């Protein structure tokens, strides 16, 4: 799978695998870090291996941060289909279901795309780290 072929869904899946490998927490209830990350990836047009679908991902400017409805819907889908599970009562964070992680990790990934996913993981460390700390000041509670 290379950057021309990969879809939004496949990319999210590969990203969650890397987050899991790196021990990063993945927010669910607070979607903001996901949208901020994907907006950053969309605007990182000079980074090698950037998936083509990102250029066409549309963001709505309806609030304090850009929001992609396709991304939000797909995160929900991964949750209710059981690919991602949230055992915590408030649905703050999700983890990858081990049964599907084996399926996802069997997908061959082109090295350029793989390095872009690494870039995405690094870019996520800021917003995802802040989301893990519920007391950290965020835009939404600053307005």
């Amino acid at each position, binding site marked *: 799978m290379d950057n021309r072929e990969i*879809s939004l869904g496949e990319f999210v899946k590969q990203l969650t695998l890397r987050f899991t490998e790196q021990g990063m927490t993945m927010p669910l209830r607070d979607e903001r870090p996901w949208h901020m990350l994907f907006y950053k990836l969309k605007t990182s047009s000079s980074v090698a291996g950037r998936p083509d679908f990102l250029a066409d991902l549309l963001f709505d400017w309806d609030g304090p941060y850009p929001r992609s409805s396709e991304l939000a819907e797909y995160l929900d889908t991964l949750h209710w289909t059981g690919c991602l599970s949230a055992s915590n009562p408030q649905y703050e964070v999700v983890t990858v279901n081990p049964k599907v992680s084996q399926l996802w990790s069997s997908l061959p990934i082109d090295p350029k795309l793989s390095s872009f996913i690494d870039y995405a993981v690094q870019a996520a460390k800021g917003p995802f780290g802040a989301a893990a700390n519920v007391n950290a000041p965020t835009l939404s509670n600053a307005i």
Partner: protein
Amino acid sequence: MLQHCPTLSKIVARLDSHLQGRFPDFFGKHPKHPFLHVKPYKVIHDSLWGTNRFSWRELAVIDSPFFQRLRAIRQVGLAYYVYPCAQHSRFEHSLGVVTVASKVFDALLQRHLPDLQMIARCFAVPVEELLARLREELRMAALVHDVGHSIYSHASEQVYQELPLLQNAVRELHKIIGKKKGAGEVISFCFSRTTALKSVLDNAQQHLPNDEKRKVKEIVWDNVSLLIVGRSVHPYLQWMGDIISSDLDADKLDYLLRDASAAGLPLRYDLERYLYTVGLAKDVLTDGDGHLEGMYGSVKALASAPPPRQEATALIEFPHYEAYTLRLPRNAVNTVEQIVICKFMLFSYIYHHRKVRAAEGMLGALLQRVVAHWRSEGKSDEDIIEEFLRLDDSSLGSAVFAGNTDTTVSSHSSRIAQRVLPREVYGFVASKFSHAEGGLLSEFMSKLLDRKTGAPQDRREAVMKQFHEVMGSELLKLKPGLGNTAEEALLNAGAWLDAPKPPKFENINLILGSSGDRIPLSEVFPIRYWIQAYESHRYTARIFSFSEHVDEVRAAARAACEKVIGATTDSFFDTALRKPVS
């Protein structure tokens, strides 16, 4: 506004020629209607909202044949095959949205007059005059928000939204307004930009009694167009766009109650409480891509200069506008819960009912075949949009369908008309598969919902294609008489994999609270849990078949599941099997 939007401009021009050519007595250069004087207003009674008054301007639109065609387009498509009384049309829904939007506006006027007066003072227009005008613009936007619909509403929208011209138009509109809207909304937006519409209104105005003619105040059409797609000419008027198209808009407030009531389902929410609590909040609209700057700069706004765009700050990471938005306070949470439950239940009872899906799936396949036929005749996307605008629910018996030389089209349309619908063979519900193959099903369903984002790669399309190829080839082996190709075999057996779009719970991002007090809905009630529970237990991907081919389709579908999903055990298929009545 459409200066750099060739696709939208093309659609507007085509709509103009369509309206003028098809309805010359109304939209032509020498219209015959109205014959007599136009009344300043009329009263229309609605089954939900009672007696309501419509102005001469609204009546001119309502009486035009382009709007009247909505009488023949059912609001909930083919759901009346399951709920016999669900025969209500887009026509009455559109009138209902006008009434609800006015109720919301009037509630704001009654309870938040100082805020509205403060907003109005920012513009160089007397406050009362401005508020009266905004109310008219809001009602006009509500009235025409659905004129883009075609045969059986969303069932046909699923087909024409795939036209490249409309996909380009969606992207162009996104560049103007900074948010993504559907194909139907794009057509309604374009309709509001036509000169044909303006000429109908000018003509109606000429037929007003002289004393009424003198009282007429112009409305700002740029604002009407933007309201249809959830924006407005100024960020201080964003709340108006929210009333027409947002998380809890007048459209939703009408259709939830209308669909439930028409189907005879005891679902209700408390509109009075909504109206009692709805308010305005000072907010920001961020504008990182500069779309809003372009929009506010290009429209005919009320103020003498475009609104000032603020630079990014430490807390607001993007350039932004100060705005007033529609907001429900924290104590309105019960109303919001009722609305969310209503929506869940309507999906479960009506929109995703297996027989409704069976009928609409057949109609979708039929329309795709008709579109392919139009293409083979050399018709462009613009021609095809026009063809769709000629269709309504009565067209099923017309030359396009029943009289089509393509026997599949004619036989399918007869089956739909006679309600000889396919039956469910297998149904896949995520929560039912807890054994070892549950992971395979989770992964398969997640692929089915990995939709196109504009790029050529579409995982859903690829998986569907693979599934249908295997199922069709197996069908041909089992019953060679079904056709010459796998695709023909599937069509003739009425066999397909149906994976509808799950309900979109945009409400999850809804913000409660007043100015400076932003509370996401998920903080005050367990909406995530509800979504997870509902989708896991109710959402069903199904395989359908005509009754006379059930046995072969069941075997072919099993082969496709084994190959594409990887599931092989009998227990997997026993769980998914829709057991026949014995």
